[in-house]
């Protein structure tokens, strides 16, 4: 069955959205969207370095994205507003990455695959990495769920309970870098944050607890993968972009429905 490229592609997509669902909720709740962008954009540099050094793209991207995330965390609150700092770092990472890639003349054609994803080219080995990384992220989220939520509601409440909210933040940062590394093949660097934010935001109007919102985000994410494949097959459009388009349509539809619902707040 795994010989069929469509089956592999769908499994890869599902692996990514399942991990992106709980993490994406935290990205939304903690307003980390721009932070996600910066981490994802740094992946271009990771791709360039991996190709230059002939190491696994997954490992290269993971390391560079993690370094970027830590750099952002360290630099915020030192002179510039978070917003400005992230704007500088996100675009600097993308620009430096593109410059670095241009030195590797023979792979210029492949760049599009990394920027926009190439889910139909997922191989068995990729699938193992995607599901391995995804399982790791889901495990991290499940393990720290209560503490992460407490720290998200209020850092001071977490301190009073004896947890260090900065440690919880670091766990989110690591999870984010892993998701970026596994999602490149699926939607590409430029659309990774969309896969984190849109399903979570789409699920929000119909969920009364954080757990339901995470589950809802997973359902919306899976529906986006299914709908995106169907659309890309019939319309002959790029798969990654179609997946994100479907999730955006679901976001709009669910939010309108949420407002029309009687007793909606």
């Amino acid at each position: 069955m795994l010989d069929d490229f469509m089956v592999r592609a769908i499994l890869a997509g599902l692996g990514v959205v399942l991990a992106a669902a709980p993490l994406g909720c935290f990205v939304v709740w903690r307003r980390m969207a721009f932070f996600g962008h910066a981490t994802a954009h740094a992946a271009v540099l990771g791709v360039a370095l991996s190709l230059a050094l002939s190491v696994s793209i997954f490992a290269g991207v993971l390391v560079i994205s993690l370094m970027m995330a830590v750099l952002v965390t360290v630099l915020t609150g030192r002179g510039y507003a978070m917003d400005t700092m992230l704007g500088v770092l996100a675009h600097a990472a993308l620009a430096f990455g593109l410059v670095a890639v241009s030195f590797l003349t023979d792979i210029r054609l492949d760049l599009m695959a990394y920027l926009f994803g190439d889910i139909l080219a997922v191989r068995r080995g990729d699938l193992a990495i995607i599901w391995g990384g995804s399982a790791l992220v889901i495990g991290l989220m499940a393990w720290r769920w209560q503490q992460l939520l407490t720290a998200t509601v209020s850092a001071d409440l977490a301190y009073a309970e004896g947890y260090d909210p900065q440690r919880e933040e670091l766990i989110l940062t690591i999870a984010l870098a892993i998701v970026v590394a596994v999602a490149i093949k699926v939607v590409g660097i430029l659309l990774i944050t969309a896969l984190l934010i849109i399903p979570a935001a789409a699920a929000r109007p119909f969920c009364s607890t954080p757990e339901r919102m995470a589950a809802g985000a997973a359902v919306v994410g899976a529906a986006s993968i299914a709908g995106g494949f169907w659309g890309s097959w019939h319309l002959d459009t790029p798969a990654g972009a179609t997946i994100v388009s479907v999730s955006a349509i679901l976001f709009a539809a669910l939010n309108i429905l949420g407002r029309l619902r009687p007793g909606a707040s």
Partner: protein
Amino acid sequence: MALSRSTMAMNDEILIQASGLGVRLGGRRILENVDFAVRRGEIVTVVGPNGSGKSTLLRALIGAIAPSRGSVEHQKGLQIGYVPQRLHIDPTLPLTVDRFLNLPRRHAREDIAKALGRAGLPEYGNASMASLSGGQFQRVLMARAILDQPQLLMLDEASQGLDQTGTADFYRQVEEIRDTLGCGIIMVSHDLHVVMRAADRVVCLNQTICCQGHPEAVSADPEYHALFGAGGDEALALFRHDPHQHPHEPPLESGNAGDSETKKASSDAG
């Protein structure tokens, strides 16, 4: 200070202690050389004008702010119940009252129901935190803080958003909690009137501790008067439950404050 020694709680077990505590935030000196301790079973009220560092002191005590000088020591394994001054829950985060009370530790359904009953919000388990009024929100924060039966309860302006009867009720509840849990309690307030009544010890803070001791002794302290002026006298009068001490206040209002102890809070529930 000599004042404080006589009023130290019967039990000498120190729960939390700050020694020579100094805090700087963004280059500004917020706290300086603060020596402060709370013992088991003791209600300590920290009063001081706006910007005197009251909230900063609490946040330094829970470890949210690293001291630039001095140290904070907790009793080993100290369980703290903390009621913050403000809590903003992002509207994108769906949170029912039940779910909030289960953070960070999950509790049995009956315990949650009991806690909500005690807080006067028995039907509110499935309500969203965002739908609560200011007073209700405050009572949920309080219910969460005492769910784990903390050894130390910290209340930062916890009576804000409550009306007069609600406030009086609130402070009676604080004394009840101390009596049933036997915990130490630190309260921060700029509302002198009510706070003085419930406290075993009052600490006057303005960057550093200017005076501390039994409420009545503190209100006689010139430092206290320098800080609070005439308002302090009013608070003292209320503390003594003596309306004749402050003839400038309309009799109806002072009567309300005195009588509120006998009323049940109901007006703020809606």
